[in-house]
């Protein structure tokens, strides 16, 4: 048994962390994350040039990683810095394109920006409920809250085709794209197709979608770990420096205990994410990842709410970095299946 990171992954993590610390200080992050296009396209290009996307793809597919721990290591660093770039959209796009046997190079090098359009208003998480239809190479239906969709050039769309779910490639100009910013930074879009021409990439694509979703869920769990670590550390510092009643409030036992409760939950969250990363691309993946996403949903909300509460009035101000970590931590539960959805999956997938 060995819980140490491999040297390759440590180097990846270190260089990404160095880049993010330098390029995405919280003031810059907030400036770009909340104003159109709700991220920093120039820095995103730089990040792609550094090869971040290669780390998300297996060697036999032209990448340099692609394992569960590679994904976790990248997204943990992104979470620590609250990076608003559409890395998740690219991870899922790369998985889908690989499943379809398509050329990944244009995505890996940043020539084409994809977003993945699966969820719908009445089918936010479940593939079975998707209503978007494909007939004779044309799509009709609305995809809702497509992350990274504000300025994506192409969309990978899940649509019903001959009664089964298929994967289509849609150009942004062939549909109505209504983009907007998110309450926790970053962007998304409504993708409204009305007889829009699209290319069929993969028929009977349920398995490919589930696998891409699972990789995305693992990524979100790891992102939450990074964000929880940073939020927790900042709160510890605050409690040590903030004085009331003539002493640092960290000296009050009632507050110490609450921080320890958070620390326990964060360690539990880290463990279940390690379990999920280990299971990715194995038959154990769906249940292990559902477990992780459920636990992360609970832990992240607790960390968000408690760090706000313990920091008092400061915790509910825009100026305070912790507030933005709290928003991201809560809203992660609204992506790719929430606590209750994954609880149901854990029950349904019980062997």
């Amino acid at each position, binding site marked *: 048994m060995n819980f140490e990171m491999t040297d390759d992954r440590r180097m990846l993590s270190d260089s990404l962390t160095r880049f993010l610390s330098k390029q995405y200080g919280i003031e810059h992050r907030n400036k770009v994350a909340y104003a159109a296009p709700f991220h920093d396209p120039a820095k995103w290009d730089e990040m792609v040039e550094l090869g971040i996307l290669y780390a998300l793809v297996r060697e036999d597919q032209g990448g340099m990683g692609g394992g569960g721990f590679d994904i976790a290591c990248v997204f943990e660093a992104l979470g620590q810095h609250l990076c608003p770039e559409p890395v998740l959209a690219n991870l899922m796009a790369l998985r889908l394109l690989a499943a379809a046997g398509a050329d990944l190079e244009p995505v890996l090098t940043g020539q084409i920006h994809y977003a993945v359009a699966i969820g719908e208003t009445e089918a936010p998480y479940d593939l079975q*409920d998707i209503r978007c239809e494909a007939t004779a190479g044309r799509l009709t239906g609305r995809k809702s809250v497509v992350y990274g969709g504000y300025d994506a050039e192409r969309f990978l769309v899940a649509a019903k085709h001959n009664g089964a779910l298929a994967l289509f490639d849609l150009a942004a100009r062939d549909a109505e794209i209504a983009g*907007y910013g*998110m*309450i926790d930074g970053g962007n998304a879009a409504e993708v409204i197709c009305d007889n829009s021409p699209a290319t069929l990439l993969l028929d009977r694509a349920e398995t490919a979608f589930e696998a891409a979703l699972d990789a995305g869920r693992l990524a979100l769990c790891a992102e939450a770990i990074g964000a929880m670590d940073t939020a927790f550390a900042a709160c510890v510092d605050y409690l040590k420096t903030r004085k009331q009643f003539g002493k640092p409030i960290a000296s009050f036992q009632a507050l110490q205990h609450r921080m320890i409760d958070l620390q326990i939950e964060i360690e539990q969250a880290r463990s279940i994410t390690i379990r999920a990363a280990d299971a990715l691309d194995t038959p154990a993946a769906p249940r292990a990842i559902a477990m992780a996403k459920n636990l992360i949903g609970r832990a992240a909300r607790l960390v968000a709410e408690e760090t706000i*509460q313990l920091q008092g009035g400061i915790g509910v101000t*825009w100026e305070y970095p912790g507030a933005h970590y709290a928003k991201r931590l809560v809203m992660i539960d609204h992506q790719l299946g*929430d606590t*209750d959805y994954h609880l149901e999956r854990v029950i349904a997938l019980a062997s």
Partner: protein
Amino acid sequence: MDLSYSAQEKAFQIQIREFLADNLPQDLAARVAARKPLGKQDYETFHALLNSKGWLNGHWPKAFGGQGWNAVEQHIFDEESFAANAPRTIPFGLRMLAPVLMAFGSPEQQSEYLPRILDGTDWWAQGYSEPGAGSDLASLKTRAERDGDDYIINGQKTWTSYAQYANRIFCLVRTNSDGKPQEGISFLLMDLDTDGVEIRPIRTIEGGYEVNEVFFTNARVPAKNLVGTENDGWTIAKYLLLHERTNIAGVGDTMDALSKVKSQAAAITRAGRPLIQNPHFAARLAQIEIDLEAMKITNLRMLSDAQKKGAPGPEASMLKIKGTVIRQAINDLARRALGPAAAPFPSEELEGNLGVAPDGHAHDAAAYFNNRKISIYGGSNEIQRNILAKGLFQP
């Protein structure tokens, strides 16, 4: 034991219900229902409407022109207001300063300021917290030094709600630094347009603007604006805290919020059925409903007790804690119910034609984040626990 309202109380309830149904502007009610931020004019409209009926100060004693409502009547009024999607009344003048002036103010102060609270001439702000004095309020440092017929004020207040709408502020200031911190505090009334007073906005977590910092640099205030006696402000602050704690549980608001989440969950489709039929969501909802049902009774028990004793006791701290936790749990549920549609940053455009979230729900996540404040302000829930623990262990 009788848990129902008396015939008289029921008649009172119907009178309020009918008046609000007939007179509350519909566009205002719609914005309140959608939890959109309101502007100064919205509150002023509602205040004027209530004042025309003599209800704005219904809770004031008859000797001061009020209706002398007791705690139960006040509770009924709040319940009906929330159910009708009325805005809340702004408490700083009506429920904070007014009781203080009645108990501690001079006859001149009473006749000058009380009518102006009612007719909307004055919007008061509360100058209590400072950057270094939050939970430990008595450590406040804003100084007031006597200079002839004036005080000269230097220092800073923070978390000042709606100071951008206010023309006056009541402040706790330090007039003596010797002895215990509580002993050198005074209660002072000021005009916000005094030279040397500067208001700076604080943006809140979800992006809204309702609180401010207020800076005082050699601001000159007439000494006649002192309420009560110099260095006795802490007594007034404690008296005010007691009044602030009536209706601290916010039962009316919470009942209304719960019924909205229910209708919302009935209208949202998940896995081909209404969300309200999802067993996990239904369980979350039921759990909150149980807690709220209990709190309604706890609240009535304490109201009835307060009616007998004249003011709520330290048990009000229980209501503050439980009330805010339940309210926040409902905000959590409303956000949760929307799934991914909760996440867009609310904007006019999204509400206009995109309709990502169902009608009236674009602000649900923002409301959840904004309402994290309710367990922090008015004495954080940690301070409320200290008050209760003091009562239990050091009687």
